[in-house]
């Protein structure tokens, strides 16, 4: 274990001290409440990470595993794992953590009645207590992502079984009883979530803050103003320019973590079924300009798997069809025999970052004779369209969030046999399957994913203009010891203190 | 004091030279609105304390402008010049606006035509008067209250305590006008301007108000300028008269001089064309050829029959029975006059007659065919029954050319083609005395009388058999009114038309009608042969109406001693505590009301010949002595009844 790396600018304030209230301006409240295994959106995960913990935890690189509720763990075989629990860990209500709680919590993830979106990521066969302090997990097939999943508070947060008994299934959406550093004090729907220090926290020094308040401020300029005027101490902003502007006014801006700006293609029909058209489109895009202007200079070339992911790999101009070449694009378009290419791109209406890039793409493609219509659609509708397979557009734009496992990025777009998948490529599916089940270590997996994403780029199954931070955490200089993390969920808030 | 020439000239025009400072001294006043030609030109007027000056003239002659100028309330764009313009010794031309404000209400005050409009509808009557009392008499609290109540009873508002707490809409028209007068008197002004103060009122109420003016003058010694276009009003009230024409005063003098022996032809014409209650004979004399027809209506066939028609309205939660169980017949070829005060249901009845509206109860029929069952004969009906309205301006679409308006009924009812209709339009225009070229002009290019001619042409365009005329001349000046009445009469004879002639002007009705129906509160209270009814009214309301018509002869002024009791809107007879729904509507104002009147609605019964009356105790003996106005004079208030 240990504190975040020393390179963090936030740690320069000398000795941490206790006390103080941190007020955070949040862009939205937890969409699915506080239930860890339901948390999918940033806003839910951010809360869940303060209330709950998994058996393990992630270090600041989001790759190295640290002990958390389990002090030790052992891979007995590729399908068998054993965990030894930390002694004396308390839940917020004062009860002590037991093996039964762990077994209950893990089984709960895959319980069909819970509808957890994470259930399909696990290959659990059995989960059992093999000693007073030991839990054994048996898988029905090897799973590379297991430990990582167990280290995220949301995909494997441990809840209190006895407290849950007799309570409504939805109770966790509005109440919380975990082992995390902060406990829920009050939830005023729509305005304020107050949390206070959990005095019985096992990592006894921490957290330093007495209290963290989350105020809902949906409007970005409002959040900016609120931070500048001192009404809040920490916000996220979406537009890089706003982050820079706040930085110029003396605020601390967390590292942005580059996540993919995806443009999924419906290759099953229409002009995009023709691979020459797809290649032409990829070549027609001036990614440099997109990065420069669309991402306001914060982006980088990327594959389908985001660079911020531990398994992500950087792309380059040499990546197939990534170099801007309008002449070649026009030529390919002519060769394809498809004339008068008209395409519709659906983007998220809530995300202010989506639009500029989409507009630029439309403008660039116009130059090679492709008409790209941009349409803003509410996120909920967009996701529905995507999942139902009825896209209502030739292209769908989404931003990646950091996933527990790299396979998820691919599964979203290319998993075999689901309606949302528009490709029909057995080779791709085989590669994906291999990558999931390999347990050869992280380097090997990284290579496999690089190969897969390279393959996707070669076939232009998806267009990735760039990857850029989807949000920036910005906080006032009063806040010390804090470090932003790539998952954007404030995993390390317990190290922060008010200077 | 003043230049010799103008002084001499003024005294010559005045006809009278009176001592003391005049309250109003205007010499050569000229007023022009914006860029227009002067609306008032070289007007010289003078009002002495305790004098009533009558100002007459047709609409637009500048009467109101003079009054407003005297108050200093002309719009900003009006330019005023005068040799002298003094109000109570203050020169209006050189006062500051502050002084002017002080002057208003305390030295000079005004009563406007529409009393409803002159009172703030959102404020209690007492409070409004108190406001002025406070401002000008500097009274407060109880003293102010006392003064308000005193004022109110002085202008004849009964039960001032209650009235003071009421809102204007809770008062009747007459009471409202009295309240407005109280308001004007509240600042103890020395001169009162009254701009058509009674035009909106019923004659019976008007008589009371006029008497009130005279009493105020006598009691308070104020000077009054009474503006009116009604000869009778002036004749009954004014001491001196000024006649205005096109912004100029063309004649001025004592009331007897001006009204009995007018010097200028215009004044003479003005006097001649005003119909009076005695004019019926002269008019009938004019059309000797038809005299026989007019005087023998009984053998005529029934054209339209109204049987027990009732029409109620709900407005703002209130239920108004506008027409209440009316039964009537309109006979072929006759002129049926309908009289009644404002709100008595005349227009509603007219709408029922032309089938613009349907009765809630009862039925109307034309030649035996019920309106409700017209069916395919609707078009024939529309052809046969036409209507002319009161406001000539309103009855023509301001956006349509005159020709189009006249052509409209022919095109829709007769389905005539363009050419035919065009010929007919020109023919009609000639017939009503307008140039053919009028066809291509818009209504606003015509005067009121011309518009009414167009409306008549329009009504005639489908060769109707019956024309309902709803106050067709009451918006017109007397001189124009005479022309229109002549036209109507000529047209009727030419086309053998039947008229239903609605008016609140008894003289006009008398001049044109064969038979007359008198309406009160939605009911027909008396019907009969015109001559008979005017000579021998049986219903107490008809009698009150006739008695209240002011005579245009200033020598026939009613006895001013009557006025002490001149209070209207008040029951003469004790009313029971709870008034039965079945009471006679007139009972509250009837000098003869008895117990039966409060419990039983009188129905129309034949008294004599064709005369029908709805009264339990009609006036039976035929009398020639002047009838005493029950409403306004009401000498015997205990209701002694001899039979």
């Amino acid at each position, binding site marked *: 274990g240990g504190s975040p790396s020393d390179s963090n600018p936030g740690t320069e304030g000398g000795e941490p001290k206790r006390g103080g209230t941190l007020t955070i*301006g949040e862009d939205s409240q937890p*969409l*699915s*409440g506080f239930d860890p295994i339901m948390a*999918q*959106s940033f806003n839910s995960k951010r809360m869940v990470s303060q209330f709950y913990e998994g058996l393990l935890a992630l270090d600041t690189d989001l790759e190295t595993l640290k002990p958390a509720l389990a002090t030790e763990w052992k891979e007995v075989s590729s399908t068998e794992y054993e965990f030894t629990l930390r002694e004396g860990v308390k839940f917020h209500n004062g009860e002590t953590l037991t093996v039964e709680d762990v077994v209950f919590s893990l089984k709960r993830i895959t319980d*069909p*009645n819970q*509808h957890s*979106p994470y259930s399909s990521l696990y290959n659990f066969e059995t989960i059992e207590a093999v000693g007073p302090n030991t839990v054994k997990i048996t898988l029905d097939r090897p799973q590379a992502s297991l430990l990582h999943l167990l280290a995220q508070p949301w995909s494997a947060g441990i809840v209190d079984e006895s407290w849950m008994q007799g309570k409504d299934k939805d*109770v966790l959406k*509005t109440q919380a009883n975990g082992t995390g550093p902060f406990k829920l004090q009050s939830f*005023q*729907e*729509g*305005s*304020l979530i107050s949390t206070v220090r959990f005095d019985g926290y096992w990592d006894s020094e921490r957290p330093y803050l007495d209290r963290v308040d989350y*105020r*809902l401020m*949906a409007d970005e*300029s*409002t959040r900016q*103003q*609120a931070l500048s*005027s001192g*009404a809040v101490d920490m916000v996220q902003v979406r537009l890089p320019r706003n982050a820079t502007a706040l930085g110029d006014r003396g605020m601390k801006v967390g590292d942005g973590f580059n996540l993919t700006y995806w443009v999924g293609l419906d290759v099953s029909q229409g002009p995009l079924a023709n691979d020459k058209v797809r290649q032409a489109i990829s070549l027609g895009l001036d990614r440099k300009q997109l990065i420069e202007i669309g991402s306001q200079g914060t982006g980088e070339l990327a594959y389908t798997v985001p660079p911020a992911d531990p398994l992500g790999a950087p792309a380059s101009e040499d990546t197939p069809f990534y170099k801007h070449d309008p002449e070649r694009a026009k030529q390919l378009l002519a060769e394809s025999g498809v004339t008068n290419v008209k395409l519709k791109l659906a983007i998220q209406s809530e995300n202010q970052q989506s639009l500029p890039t989409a507009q630029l793409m439309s403008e660039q493609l116009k130059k090679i004779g492709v008409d790209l219509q941009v349409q803003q659609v509410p*996120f*909920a*509708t967009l996701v*529905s369209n995507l*999942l139902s397979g009825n896209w209502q557009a030739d292209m769908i734009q989404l931003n990646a969030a950091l*996933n527990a496992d790299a396979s998820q990025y691919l599964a*979203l777009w290319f998993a075999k046999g689901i309606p949302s998948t528009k490709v029909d490529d057995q080779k791709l599916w085989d590669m994906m399957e291999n990558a999931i089940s390999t347990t050869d270590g992280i380097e090997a997996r990284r290579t496999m994913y690089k190969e897969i994403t390279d393959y996707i780029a070669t076939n232009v199954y998806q267009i990735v203009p760039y990857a850029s931070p989807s949000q920036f955490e910005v906080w006032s200089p009063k806040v010390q010891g804090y470090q932003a993390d790539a998952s954007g969920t404030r995993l390390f808030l317990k190290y922060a203190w008010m200077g | 004091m003043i230049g010799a020439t103008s002084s001499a000239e003024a005294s010559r025009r005045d006809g009278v030279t009176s001592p003391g400072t005049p309250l109003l001294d205007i010499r050569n006043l000229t007023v022009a609105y914006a860029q227009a030609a002067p609306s008032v030109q070289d007007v010289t007027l003078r009002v002495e304390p305790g004098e009533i000056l009558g100002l007459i003239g047709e609409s637009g002659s500048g009467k109101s402008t003079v009054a407003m100028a005297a108050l200093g*309330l002309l719009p900003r764009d009006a330019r005023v010049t005068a040799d002298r313009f003094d109000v109570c010794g203050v020169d209006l031309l050189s006062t500051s606006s502050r002084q002017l*404000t002080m*002057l*208003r*209400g*305390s030295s000079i005050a*005004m009563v406007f035509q529409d009393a409803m409009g002159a*009172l*703030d*509808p*959102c404020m209690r009557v007492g409070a409004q008067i108190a406001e*002025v009392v406070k401002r*000008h008499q500097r009274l407060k609290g109880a003293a102010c209250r006392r003064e308000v109540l005193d004022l109110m009873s002085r202008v004849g508002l009964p*039960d001032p305590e*209650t009235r003071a707490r009421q*809102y204007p809409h809770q008062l009747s028209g007459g009471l409202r006008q009295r309240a407005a007068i109280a*308001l004007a008197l509240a600042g103890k002004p020395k001169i009162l301007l009254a701009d058509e103060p009674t035009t909106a009122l019923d004659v019976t109420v008007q008589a009371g108000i006029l008497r009130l003016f005279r009493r105020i003058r006598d009691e308070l010694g104020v000077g009054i300028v009474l503006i009116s276009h009604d000869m009778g009003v002036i004749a009954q009230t004014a001491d001196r008269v000024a006649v205005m024409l096109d912004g100029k005063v063309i004649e001025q003098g004592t009331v007897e001089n001006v009204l009995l022996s007018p010097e200028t032809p215009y004044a003479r014409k003005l006097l001649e064309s005003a119909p009076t209650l005695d004019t019926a004979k002269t008019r009938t004399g004019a059309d000797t050829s038809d005299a026989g027809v007019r005087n023998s209506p009984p053998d005529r066939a029934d054209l339209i029959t109204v049987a027990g028609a009732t029409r109620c309205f709900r407005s*703002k*939660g209130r239920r108004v029975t506008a027409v209440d169980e009316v039964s009537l017949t309109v006979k072929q070829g006759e002129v049926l006059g309908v009289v009644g005060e404002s709100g008595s249901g005349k227009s509603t009845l007219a709408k029922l007659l032309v089938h613009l509206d349907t009765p809630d109860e009862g039925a109307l029929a034309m030649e035996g065919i019920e309106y409700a069952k017209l069916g395919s004969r609707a078009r024939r009906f529309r052809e046969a029954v036409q209507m002319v309205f009161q406001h000539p301006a309103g009855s023509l679409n301001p956006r349509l050319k005159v020709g189009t308006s006249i052509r409209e009924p022919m095109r829709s009812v007769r389905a005539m083609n363009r050419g035919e209709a065009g010929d007919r339009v020109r023919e009609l225009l000639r017939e009503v005395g307008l140039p053919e070229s009028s066809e291509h002009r818009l209504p606003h290019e015509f005067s009121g009388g011309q518009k009414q001619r167009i409306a008549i042409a329009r009504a005639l365009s489908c060769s109707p058999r019956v024309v309902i005329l709803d106050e067709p001349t009451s918006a017109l000046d007397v001189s124009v009114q005479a022309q229109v009445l002549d036209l109507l009469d000529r047209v009727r004879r030419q086309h053998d038309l039947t008229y239903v002639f609605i008016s609140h002007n008894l003289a006009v009705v008398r001049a044109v009608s064969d038979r007359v129906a008198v309406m009160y509160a939605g009911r027909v209270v008396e019907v009969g042969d015109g001559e008979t009814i005017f000579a021998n009214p049986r219903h107490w309301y008809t009698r009150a109406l006739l008695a209240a018509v002011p005579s245009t002869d200033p020598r026939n002024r009613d006895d001013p001693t009557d006025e002490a009791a001149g209070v209207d809107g008040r*029951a003469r007879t004790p*009313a*029971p505590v709870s*008034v039965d*729904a079945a*009471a006679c*509507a007139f009972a509250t104002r009837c000098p003869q009301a008895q117990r039966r009147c*409060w419990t039983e609605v009188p129905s129309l019964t034949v008294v004599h010949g064709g005369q029908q009356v709805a009264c339990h105790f009609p006036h039976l003996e035929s009398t020639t002595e002047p009838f005493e106005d029950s409403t306004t004079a009401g000498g015997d208030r205990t209701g002694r009844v001899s039979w």
Partner: protein
Amino acid sequence: MPQSVTREPSLVSRPRVPRVPVPPAWVRFVLRRVLRGVLVLFALSLLAFGLVHMLPGSPVDTLAGPYSDAATRARLTTDLGLDKPLPVQYVTWLSNTLRGDLGTSVFNGLPVREMIGERLPNTLELAVFATIISVAWGVPAGALSAMRRGRAVDVTARTVTFVGLAIPVFAFGVALVLLFSILFPAWPTLGFVPFSEDAVRNLQSMLLPSIALGLPLGSTLCRFMRSSMLEVYEQDFIRTALATGSTQLQATMRHGLRNAAAPVATVAGLQMAGIVGNSILIENVFAIPGIGQLTVTAITHLDIAVAQACILVLGATYVVLNLAVDLLLPLIDPQIGKDR
């Protein structure tokens, strides 16, 4: 009873009594209005239900998220009752609603009634303040501008109303925040605090949003007031007031305002209902937990129960406010509705 006949006459002339005894006019008036309101609400429930169910997509997809599998989503659909036929869903919802059960949010599991109950007061507070502000500037400015028609004041006021009517509320809000944070850095511009928690801070935090909503709306009122006032000025009682020695100001204050107020009050009432709807934007800008914001998020997230309930509640607010204005009007203008 001869006695009763000879009793002291009633001095007020008596109106004729209707033949059938009916409840007093105002009772019938209120009953009719209430009945109409209920009908409108019923139709609104149909409309709300229909529209919300027509929204493309399903809450299940948002709930389960893009990475979920089909089986999970199918189970969720069944659990939420979204697989039943629409009429059945409607009847269930309506009967629950009538029993006061507005359902629970599919996302955070909170009872909708609680969510609305917490937010509605904030929106109403905002609406009331905004109305006060709009009336406070719109009515006097309109009156003044009518009084000084064509003069500098009038021109200025009308120019301001044009600006007020031309700037989107949200942009105005953001500009206000900016301006305030520069001019008064200490002002708690953006920290909404519930009234129950700290009344002073609550009022402070409500000031800017109320201004942002109220000033533009005041422009409408100002225009209405001006034209209503000009109409009143043409009436005889103003002339009478002047003729009895009132100054222009006195005539305006004592007679003009109240008479011009009735139509303006109707507009203000309608506007207040409109504010509740338009609060969406301002609540977003000023981070006020109000019902407008809730409705928009519910619609965009497809939180069916919440969206339906919100639309219904907003509609009910409109109906109630309108009713209230109708019932209050007689206080301003005694001619309206009084018949006894």
